[in-house]
């Protein structure tokens, strides 16, 4: 009986009334692309998010354009994104804004990789909580090569990048 009491005491010590949700730590993300197809949802709950504050608004955006684009325009053959989920919009010379259409984004991290390799790293992946069903064991976390999935408190469910990638 004391054993049961001790176990219950231990449980009471470990229990937390704060609900948590899954999130990707952008510092650990290796942009492998597994988020696109390991989510239990048909359309992955992981989407690309744009931290505009650290974006360079480049004309030649290395997240938007594939290697050696024929022209810097919105033609499909020039784009990295397989679903054309990034909207390129002219702001003022020579700056362009890049916005993610989440209904199209599949979380494949191609743009994230391009942006982090050669740019500021303002594009990064996040679990979107309007979609995530918050599985007990996240099935993407299981296969994540960077071990980047963490549980975060539900009041602050996003890890938005504020400092650019520099290496």
């Amino acid at each position, binding site marked *: 009986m004391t054993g049961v009491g001790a*176990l219950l005491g*231990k*449980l009471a010590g*470990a*229990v*937390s*009334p*704060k*609900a*948590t*949700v899954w999130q990707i730590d952008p510092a650990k993300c*290796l942009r*492998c692309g597994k988020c696109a197809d390991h989510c*239990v*949802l*048909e359309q992955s709950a992981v989407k690309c*998010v744009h*931290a*505009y*504050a*650290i*974006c*360079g*608004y*480049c*004309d*030649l955006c*290395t997240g938007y354009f594939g290697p050696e684009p024929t022209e810097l325009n919105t033609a499909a053959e020039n784009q990295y994104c397989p679903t054309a989920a990034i909207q390129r919009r002219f*702001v*003022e010379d*020579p*700056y362009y*804004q890049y*916005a993610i259409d989440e209904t199209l984004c599949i979380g494949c991290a191609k743009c994230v990789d391009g942006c982090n390799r*050669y*740019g*500021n790293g303002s594009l990064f992946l996040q679990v*979107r*909580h*309007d979609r*995530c*069903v*918050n*599985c*007990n*064991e996240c*099935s993407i976390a*299981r296969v994540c*090569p*960077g071990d980047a999935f963490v*549980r975060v408190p*539900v*009041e602050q*469910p*996003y890890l*938005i990048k504020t*400092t*650019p990638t*520099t*290496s």
Partner: protein
Amino acid sequence: MRRFLNILLGFLLLGSTALAEQRFPPPDFESGYKIPAPTTPFARAEFLQYLDMAALLAALGVSLWLVYRSRSRRGIAALSLCSLAYFGFYRKGCVCAIGSVQNVALAMFDSHYALPLTALVFFLAPLVVALFAGRAFCAAVCPQGAIQDLVLLKPIKVPAWLEHALGLIPSLFLGAGVIFAATGSGFIICRYDPMVPFFRFNGSSLMLGVGAAFLLVGMFVGRPYCRFLCPYGALLRMATAASQWRVRVTPDTCTQCALCQHSCPFGALREPVPAAKSESLRGARKRLTVLLLLLPVWIGLGALGGSKLATAASMVNPTVKLAERYVRSLSGGEKEPLEIQRAEKNPEPVVASALDIRKRFELCGWLFGGWAGLVLGAKFIALSTRRKRSDFEPDPGACYACARCFETCPSERIRRGLMPVELEPTNKE
């Protein structure tokens, strides 16, 4: 052009540490452009977790009332449909009592893991109910049970030997699930839950196939997952051994008419057993002594076998697997995958924690093997003991309190006024 040069410069400087803090500084817009903030759609509101807990407790209460007070099969069926809708299709099967076992196990052994209150309540509430009043949770609260109950068409009787043999699996699955959770290797009970893909209308083809197979079999064999796989069911079954209130076919006297005999689709209804004769009792006593003496042997053999499995089982743990692959990559194995590159950057902690986890697995191997031996030995003992039973009544461990048998009982039908009193068998003569 300036931007292009910047990019070139960026390429050239790649890899050098003396890079400016930002490759492309944010522009100073002159057109009055406001830099937008990224959208952050809300997660499910925190108070809703209390709604889940309240729904669970309310459903348990209603289920108890339906089983013991109103004794209504129709009510149980209606409640199980509600549970299926809420815990199954609305909550997508996540936060469930079956999986909560693993959260609790992980919280016991990993001091860094914060156990969600919801998981603890989902783990404890049905267990406490089972401790006092049987498996009212399985009756109408568990969505996994509800969906199987729903597809049951024409139940066939599973042969006793098969029932007993397959009935060992839940306890073993429970042991494995607890060990993999406690070592932080993953939640295999969630991973191999065959019903959740249906609640989500989505899942791996393997689990969808397994789930479909369970539902197909479930049309003829009542609740196959509950009976032959559910690890939480194994826990509840153990808890019911102490339960005070038991489901009875009729609260009135049993007239031994045997009409309820075939009403249980789950093989939980037990026939009356007359008291044993004294000579057969002596033989039984001897057999029981032998089996009790054999119990430590089973446990020992199991532990020995389990310890042999430990190394193989530890490969389920992602850290151990990574360390293993990393070590292999040192001697000319694959180097390409990203996770190995991550391990290469800082190999010591990965290898150290892998060794630590493997050591824990060695202990767990012994424990799991011993548990398997205990389960087997206890089964033999349970099979060889016979308890005198005067009435037809459900075995509290196996009974899901579905209330199907109630309506087959003539005493119950008379009590409900469904049958005229003069037809009561005892009044016939």
